[in-house]
């Protein structure tokens, strides 16, 4: 996939676990795991907003485009 989610890097930088973030954002660990492993097909604006709020970042910090 061309778009990659840099969730693992942000979690490491914020010293947060996936479980903690899932609780804060209100998304299940399974779904966050799908996002983290780049298996997700799409991301809702509401999820993106919640992630940016909790990780104190911009959408651009969370997503990156890589040529395959």
């Amino acid at each position: 996939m061309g778009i990659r989610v840099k969730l693992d890097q942000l979690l490491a930088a914020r010293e947060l676990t996936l479980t903690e973030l899932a609780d804060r954002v209100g998304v299940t660990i399974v779904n966050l795991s799908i996002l983290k492993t780049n298996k997700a097909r799409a991301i809702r604006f509401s999820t993106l907003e919640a992630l940016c709020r909790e990780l104190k970042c911009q959408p651009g910090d969370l997503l990156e485009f890589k040529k395959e």
Partner: protein
Amino acid sequence: MRTIGQGSIASLINFVLGFVRLGVALLLFLAAAMTAVSLVVRPDALAVAVPVSFSLDVPMPIHVGRTGFGFDLVGGRDQPKKPPTGRIDRVEGSLRISPDDKRVLVANAVAFLLVTVIALFVIDELRAVLKTLIHGNPFVASNATHIRRIALAVIVGELLRAAVVFAENYYAKTHIAIAGVRFDAWPNVSLFTLGYGLIILVIAEVFRAGTRLDEEQSLTI
């Protein structure tokens, strides 16, 4: 009554198809045995039913009577003055014969075998689809494939049926003579059945699209 899930119509159909499958499997066994026997037995030792289509050379006037309700209005207003007549024009049926050629016997047995194989195949594919419906999730990737296979089996089965009937009609036309009877042999493909097959093919694609949408939905976080 629910259409999908446990104890639903899908579950009932699956249950009934289980018995039908057993019957068709027995027929398949019988067809295989018949095919084996047809290879070794003398052709005139067995009788086969050959599908025929024929017309009568000699016109046979018939009277079209009123089936009515057990009584007729004699001299009534609706009573026709002269009963209409008709004639037997084209009849379709089967003729039981002891063929002189072993190939007829073998071809009949093989045709029966193929029909049972196709029927069993369709039942198995249908049951595979029904099982996913019973589990409450019709949009699984394999369903589109199963439905597509059913559609192709319906189309191929119909073409095969038409080919077998045509071949046997042709055999009757060229090998059997009955005074006053003229056998016909025309390719008689049922456009309705082919249409059903094509409709099922479209439904398979709808399922494929539905499965894709369902997958996208479940992978949207």
